[in-house]
């Protein structure tokens, strides 16, 4: 045990020791929710604070947006015009420096500055069932309201952003819901709108109660015409990772599901990353197998295979059918001696090439902590027809490369590299978050979480 660990353990025990069992306020069995409980007054607690703070928050955000919008209007009077450069804005899920619960922020690409925060929606918590009612679009908390943390963000056209929110209940995040907002030319987000077919009850926990409070979404992508949304989710409560693909038709609200067919004996299967072709018909995904499965150690599978054997494929699914087996997806690229570790891959709008994160080099020594994946990272373009690398966009070294996420703009020309993991890494100069601009790596702030443009 290191000195830091010893000091931490000592301080925690000292701090916790002041809580004496015989001095605790007795627990009161609830006769009726909200009654009969005498709360001890807390210094600084103000019951009127949450609604006032939320209202002020809206005002503050609105002010920020107006100011930022005015600046952008002066400096960028043209349309989005992706051919003339990267998207003017991108959205991130960013953690707070103190509390890592995430929020959706809109950034100006030119400066990386946050120009607007998207207010979290809230939903009422029915008192007895713990199941949330359909959420509202307002940011003003009501009695028994629950905040809804965002889990994933994506856009297909660089302007209309879709966000997956978890609906919080007393015991966890049972349901997911998808909402959208549109950015004006000045970068101002619209009100959140409900997405047709975007209510996903039971997807938050996989139906296993608290054992999966933190829902894991293996991928989230929106077609360029905003007509289809795809998510990689857990097929059942026994799934250890995202192993099915759900496609939502946003015009009709219809769902189509692809699952099964790619399972291998004694291997854990996971779907990591989704991307659409421009016509909204084909969906590319990365399939990963860990052998033996991580579930042999725990019932929760990590994105990483750790010390187990890993293999991966990039496949393309024709989503015009009503669903079916994942085995119908066409193989585009497979792990091989040439590509020993394909961490992520997205398909180009015309479907002729892939942009992929490849990892290489020896595994770092196992120090009992941290991931087990090669640290050398390359972002390359690979021809679907020949399987050959046609260009290298970026090379770097990052100890957390395996957590990296790829986002490509609607033209396929601009690539953003971020970490799917949102934790801040102050002082870590090797952190590779940025976007690629004609061979130059435009570094983003260290606290950039998963991004969409």
């Amino acid at each position, binding site marked *: 045990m290191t000195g830091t*660990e010893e000091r931490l353990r000592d301080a925690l025990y000292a701090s*916790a020791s002041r809580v004496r069992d015989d001095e605790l306020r007795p627990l009161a069995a609830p006769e009726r929710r909200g009654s009969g409980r005498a709360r001890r007054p807390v210094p600084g*607690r103000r019951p009127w604070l949450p609604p006032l703070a939320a209202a002020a928050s809206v005002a503050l955000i609105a002010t920020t947006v107006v100011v930022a919008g005015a600046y952008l209007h002066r400096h960028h009077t043209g349309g989005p015009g992706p051919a003339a450069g990267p998207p003017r804005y991108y959205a991130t899920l960013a953690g707070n420096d103190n509390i890592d*619960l995430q929020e959706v922020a809109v950034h100006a690409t030119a400066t990386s500055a946050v120009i607007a925060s998207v207010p979290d929606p809230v939903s009422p918590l029915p008192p007895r069932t713990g199941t949330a009612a359909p959420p509202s679009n307002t940011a003003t908390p009501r009695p028994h309201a629950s*905040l809804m943390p965002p889990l994933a963000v994506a856009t297909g056209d660089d302007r209309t952003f879709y966000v997956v929110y978890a609906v919080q209940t*007393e015991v966890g995040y049972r349901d997911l819901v998808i909402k959208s907002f549109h950015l004006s030319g000045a970068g101002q987000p619209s009100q959140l709108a409900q997405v047709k077919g975007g209510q996903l009850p039971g997807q938050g926990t996989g139906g296993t109660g608290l054992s*999966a409070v933190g829902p894991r979404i293996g991928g989230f992508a929106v077609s360029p015409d905003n007509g289809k949304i795809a998510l990689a989710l857990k097929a059942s409560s026994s799934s250890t990772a995202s192993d099915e693909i759900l496609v939502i038709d946003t015009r009709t609200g219809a769902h189509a599901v692809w699952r099964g067919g790619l399972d291998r004996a004694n291997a854990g299967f996971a779907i990591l990353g989704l991307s659409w072709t421009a016509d909204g018909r084909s969906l590319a995904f990365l399939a990963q197998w860990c052998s033996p499965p991580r579930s042999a150690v725990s019932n929760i599978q990590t994105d990483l295979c750790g010390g187990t054997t890993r293999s991966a494929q990039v496949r393309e699914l024709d989503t015009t059918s009503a669903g079916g087996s994942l085995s119908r997806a066409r193989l585009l690229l497979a792990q091989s001696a040439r590509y020993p570790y394909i961490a992520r891959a997205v398909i180009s709008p015309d479907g002729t090439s892939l942009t992929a994160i490849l990892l290489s080099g020896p595994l770092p020594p196992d120090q009992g902590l941290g991931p087990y994946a090669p640290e050398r990272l390359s972002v390359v373009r690979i021809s679907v027809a020949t399987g050959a690398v046609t260009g290298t966009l970026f090379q770097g070294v990052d100890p957390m490369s395996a957590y990296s996420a790829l986002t490509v703009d609607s033209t396929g020309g601009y690539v953003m590299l971020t970490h799917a993991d949102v*934790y801040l890494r102050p002082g870590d100069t090797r952190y590779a978050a940025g976007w690629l601009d004609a061979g130059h790596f435009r570094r983003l702030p260290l606290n950039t979480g998963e991004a969409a443009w």
Partner: protein
Amino acid sequence: MISALFRQHHGDLVRLAVLLVGDLPTAEDVVQDVYASVHARWTRLPARDSGLSYVRAAVLNRCRSVLRRRRVASRVSLGFRAAEHTLASAEHEALLSEDRRQVLEALTRLPYRRREVLVLRYYFDLSEAEIAEALGISPGTVKSTAARGLAALARALGEQS
């Protein structure tokens, strides 16, 4: 059953909450709220979940909600500050050595998830698998989060990690 479980673990649950939210009154409220919530629907909960891990996760969720609301309040300071969620209150500081106070202050400045992992690991001695289950994350993420938390703590304390 639920009442017996809470009677047996009441102190530990409050200690878990106090290490995360920082003050005893709020920590007691957190546990009371969870008790009220779970009490109402205990019989309908999945039998496969162990009672203690279920309740512990509910306490973690409620602590997260408390801190999230504090964050919203502190984001807009209207001439006042939201209740300070420091582990080292004035009363508490008097009981702690300077070294412990420094460690706790550094811990408070960590992102919440790292704090959760470090508290569960170094105070409650939970295994990685148990922490992963309580937080709904993978064991790999528990490992990396703990490593980062310790490294950040060491940096803040001027140590070599």
